[in-house]
């Protein structure tokens, strides 16, 4: 012994190899390792242990050393399993008879004790292995690396797994899984458990691997614990979902689910492993959200409908967040929300159209063969009411839009998909209502006429933008254009527009939205107005220069309208007959001559139905200036020749002026019935003008104003039934023409084209303006073939050929 030690100790550089006796060195080492286990390391010399291990490895005893260390550790662990862990093994939890036999508190105590013991055993193992790893560093670095075998630390972790967790007799690992799952279950039920101890045991499972390669997805935690945990959780949440659905209202359900999600999240972070987070979240998502969310949304009196109707932003936000977890498209939410939105929208449409329908039919009921003046006036009134209705409709739709937009902003995280769905829903119900284009145009008209007074630029902009948002939803843009043109023309001609800037702003917005083709005519109207103004002043100058023809009493102001831009109807003097007083006739003829001299080849149609006149009149010695319509002026002029007290009957006025009956009624109504502007008196007095009435100058008329405006009833108002029929017809005609034009354009370009292709092409070209009716397209094709613009290609039935 002594001799051999002497032989080893001094470093020899001789030729003979140092002989190293393995057993002798190992005995020293093994004793040291046992001391480490016994917590007696403080009297060991690190250097000595390190040197011994170094020597053994250097002298090629690495494999024996490695094997012996493993054997020593393995034996130690076996003792630990039997003596330390086994006595605390909670058999009742493992065998599964938990729910009945054992009380929760007892189960918790037993389980916790077991977990604490395992924690202790594990931490001791780690500590000792840490020290052993250090003294065996040279072996790890040289022997293990050279032979590509796991380091001693890794190997001994595997030993812990095999000798403790997978103990062939006691099945400690299974017990551990069951106890943790049992404890989590207690926590889910509201008990308080010792999270730190569980956490320590989970750390252990996470630190152990199935193999010594230590693949991240081979953690014992994942391979043995997690699977069981997930399936136990599935059962738990399946039951919980059913129970909540039975017991709770929608809002409570959502809150409970949200709470569960948060709990599971923090459980993964505080108690279990973050690795489990996505998986357990998936379980909650599936069992509590995916499976039941539709039922929750459908809940009577608390579901989605209730939340939407009552602006439950928080609850809706939860619905959105929870659904987002299971469906990035949020299909069911979109579908249900839009269904409600469309119902609400249609409800607005319905309440708006119901009273109107009844009054309209009432108006029709008064007899339409010879339209009595009463009928005309009452129809006017209905129309006026409808203007209010139109504005109410727009307001309500806007309010609905605001409501849903608010929800969208506050609860739905401004989700793009939901926005698109909402747009579709709005488009649906707005276009479902056939008067929406007219109503929207009326709304704009109302605002441009009076609504904008005293508003700042940005406020104006806001109102116009609102109108524009509704405009976007309209599919029949051409119908809207027609109404807008009509309303715009009245505003321009009667000078009713509050601000030309606002008008231009609105047109600018349309232009941005649908392009020049849409707004060209509107702009043309403005141009006409400007040219007319210049023309008027030029004519005045010219007239003054050639004094002979200029009548001092009449000052003419003209508005020359290009008939294609303006919705002024067919024209021709016959459509609007009117016999002017001589002075007026002279002025008219003079301007006609002047105009036609400058623009040869044009035709001027005079429109007394659209003009206005300012005339001076003296009542009781007081001079007044009356602003009336052209017709009104013509009527009043008929009285100016009479002696005081003379009367004219309706018939007589009609003969003198040849103003169409309907217009005459409307104007006489303004002159003789309206209380503040009654410059004529009517016999008998009544609210309606009848064909049998007799009229005279109202000598008693007095007013504190110098200038009196005698307006004709209603400027821009909703259409009467009759007008609407006209508009519809016009629209149909116009659409037919547009479709035909498109057809011819396409044929000219393609020469030969199949039926479906042709129809599709037309549909895309028309899309921005209106949705063409398929039968209309077919009819137009037939008609074009009749007129020999195109023909069926020989032999192929579904193909057309363009005829040059």
């Amino acid at each position, binding site marked *: 012994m002594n001799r051999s030690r002497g032989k080893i*100790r*001094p*470093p*020899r*550089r*001789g*030729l*003979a*190899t*140092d002989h190293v006796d393995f057993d002798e060195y190992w005995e020293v080492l093994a004793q040291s390792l046992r001391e480490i286990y016994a917590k007696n*390391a*403080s*009297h*060991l*010399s*690190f*250097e*000595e242990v*390190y*040197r011994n291990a*170094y020597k053994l*490895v*250097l002298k*090629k005893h690495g494999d024996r050393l490695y094997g012996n260390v493993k054997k020593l550790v393995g034996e130690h662990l076996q003792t630990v399993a039997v003596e330390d862990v086994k006595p605390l093994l909670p058999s009742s939890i493992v065998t599964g008879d938990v729910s009945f036999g054992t009380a929760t508190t007892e189960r918790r105590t037993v389980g916790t004790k077991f977990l604490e013991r395992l924690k202790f055993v594990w931490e001791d193992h780690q500590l000792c292995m840490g*020290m052993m790893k*250090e003294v065996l*560093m*040279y072996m790890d*670095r*040289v022997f293990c690396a*050279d032979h590509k075998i796991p380091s001693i630390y890794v190997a001994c972790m595997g030993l812990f797994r095999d000798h403790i967790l997978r103990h062939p007799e006691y099945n400690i690992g299974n017990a551990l899984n069951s106890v943790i799952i049992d404890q989590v279950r207690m926590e889910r039920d509201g008990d308080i458990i010792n999270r730190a101890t569980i956490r320590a045991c989970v750390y252990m499972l996470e630190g152990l691997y199935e193999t010594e390669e230590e693949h991240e997805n081979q953690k014992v935690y994942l391979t043995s614990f997690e699977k069981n945990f997930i399936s136990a959780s599935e059962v738990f949440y399946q039951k919980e979902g059913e129970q909540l659905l039975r017991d709770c209202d929608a809002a409570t359900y959502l809150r409970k689910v949200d709470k569960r999600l948060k709990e599971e999240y923090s459980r993964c972070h505080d108690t279990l492993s973050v690795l489990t987070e996505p998986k357990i979240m998936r379980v909650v998502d599936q069992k509590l959200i995916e499976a039941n969310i539709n039922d929750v949304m459908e809940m009577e009196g608390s579901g989605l409908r209730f939340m939407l109707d009552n602006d439950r932003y928080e609850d809706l936000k939860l619905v959105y967040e929870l659904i987002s977890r299971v469906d990035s498209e949020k299909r069911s939410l979109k579908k249900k929300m839009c269904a409600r939105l469309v119902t609400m929208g249609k409800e607005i449409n319905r309440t708006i159209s119901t009273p109107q329908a009844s009054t309209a039919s009432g108006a029709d009921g008064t007899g339409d063969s010879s339209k009595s003046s009463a009928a005309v006036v009452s129809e006017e009134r209905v129309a006026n009411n409808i203007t209010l209705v139109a504005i109410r409709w727009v307001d309500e739709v806007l309010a609905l839009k605001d409501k849903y937009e608010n929800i969208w902003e506050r609860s739905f995280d401004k989700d793009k998909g939901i926005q698109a769905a909402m747009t579709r829903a709005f488009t649906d119900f707005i276009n479902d209502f056939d008067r929406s284009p007219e109503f929207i145009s009326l709304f704009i008209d109302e605002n441009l006429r009076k609504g904008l007074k005293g508003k700042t630029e940005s406020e104006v902009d806001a109102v116009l933008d609102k109108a524009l948002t509704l405009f976007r939803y309209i599919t029949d843009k051409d119908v809207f254009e027609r109404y807008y043109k009509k309303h715009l023309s009245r505003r321009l001609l009667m000078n009713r527009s509050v601000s030309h800037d606002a008008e231009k702003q609105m047109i600018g917005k349309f232009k941005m939205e649908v392009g020049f083709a849409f707004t060209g005519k509107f702009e043309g109207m403005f141009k006409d107005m400007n040219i007319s103004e210049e023309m008027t002043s030029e004519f005045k100058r010219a007239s003054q220069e050639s004094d002979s023809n200029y009548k001092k009493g009449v000052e003419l102001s003209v508005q020359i309208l290009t008939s294609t831009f303006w919705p002024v109807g067919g024209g021709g003097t016959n459509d609007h007959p009117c016999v002017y007083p001589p002075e007026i006739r002279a002025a008219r003829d003079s301007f006609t001559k002047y105009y036609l001299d400058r623009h040869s080849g044009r035709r001027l149609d005079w429109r007394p139905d659209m003009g206005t006149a300012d005339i001076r009149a003296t009542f009781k010695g007081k001079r007044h200036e009356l602003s009336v319509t052209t017709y009104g002026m013509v009527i009043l002029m008929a009285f100016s020749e009479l002696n005081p007290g003379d009367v004219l009957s309706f018939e007589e006025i009609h003969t003198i002026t040849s103003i169409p009956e309907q217009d005459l009624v409307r104007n006489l109504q303004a002159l003789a019935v309206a209380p503040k502007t009654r410059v004529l008196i009517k016999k008998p007095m009544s609210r309606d003008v009848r064909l049998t009435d007799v009229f005279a100058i109202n000598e008693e008329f007095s007013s504190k104003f110098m200038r009196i405006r005698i307006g004709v009833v209603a400027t821009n108002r909703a259409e009467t039934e009759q007008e609407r029929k006209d508009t519809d017809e016009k629209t149909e005609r116009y659409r037919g023409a547009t479709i035909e034009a498109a057809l011819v354009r396409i044929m000219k370009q393609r020469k030969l084209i199949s039926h479906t292709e042709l129809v599709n092409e037309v549909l895309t070209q028309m899309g921005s303006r209106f949705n063409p009716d398929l039968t209309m397209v077919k009819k137009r094709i037939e008609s074009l073939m009749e007129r020999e613009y195109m023909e069926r290609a020989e032999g192929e039935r579904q193909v057309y050929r363009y005829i040059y």
Partner: protein
Amino acid sequence: MECEDCGGLYIGCESCGSPPLVCSKPTANSPTIKHSPVYKDFLFGGNVTLYVGPKRKRMEIHKKLLASISSELDKHVNNDMREGIEGKIYLPDEGEEVLTLFTEWAYTGDYASKDDALRADRGNPKKLKQDPWPSLHKHLQLYAFAEKFNVPILKRLAESKFHIEIGPVSVESNCSRNVSSLVKAIGYACDNLPSSDPVLKFLAQYAAWRLELLRETASFNDLVSSQPDFLKELLMNVRGPKAKPKAPRKHRP
């Protein structure tokens, strides 16, 4: 005080404010690259006492410096065993000379394996031909030390010095001292390095290159017979006769 340029410590006069002369931040060549603690830490971190060799020659070294060199040395210094508690480390297997060179390297980043007197005569190298083997042997010893305590930088340094110095050495038949020194060196390397070490491979090639000289010496034959791994490595480098061996004349047909 920290250096403005590198954040390292100044060694300068703090009280008079004179500009510091040295910036003490360890540079890439310094032995402290791994943990880069600053000298101040060394100075105030205390000492550890080394008892070197069988005679337990007492040496002192700054504790933190030693610990910063490798995790193995760190564990020798900072542990819950005797060394950590007593602040003493016994290194019975190491030589005083090796520890001295190691300490020189630890503090300066380099070590000198030749005596100063010999260096002074460098001006006339042809005249005084030195025996290269003691120096080469020191490199091997430091190399083995660095291998034992896992100090890769020192290992590389010693290896490169070894290669630089063995380059010009000629092992000729007329110089038996060189031959026996080479055999000794191989013997030392076999005893103190793991058989996979590149220096051993190099020495095997070197021996194969001068095999004709070596195989005639008894010491080499002893070495080969006691070091099977080295023999194996050597054989990898030995080419056999160029032609197919012929049978002795009497057996020819």
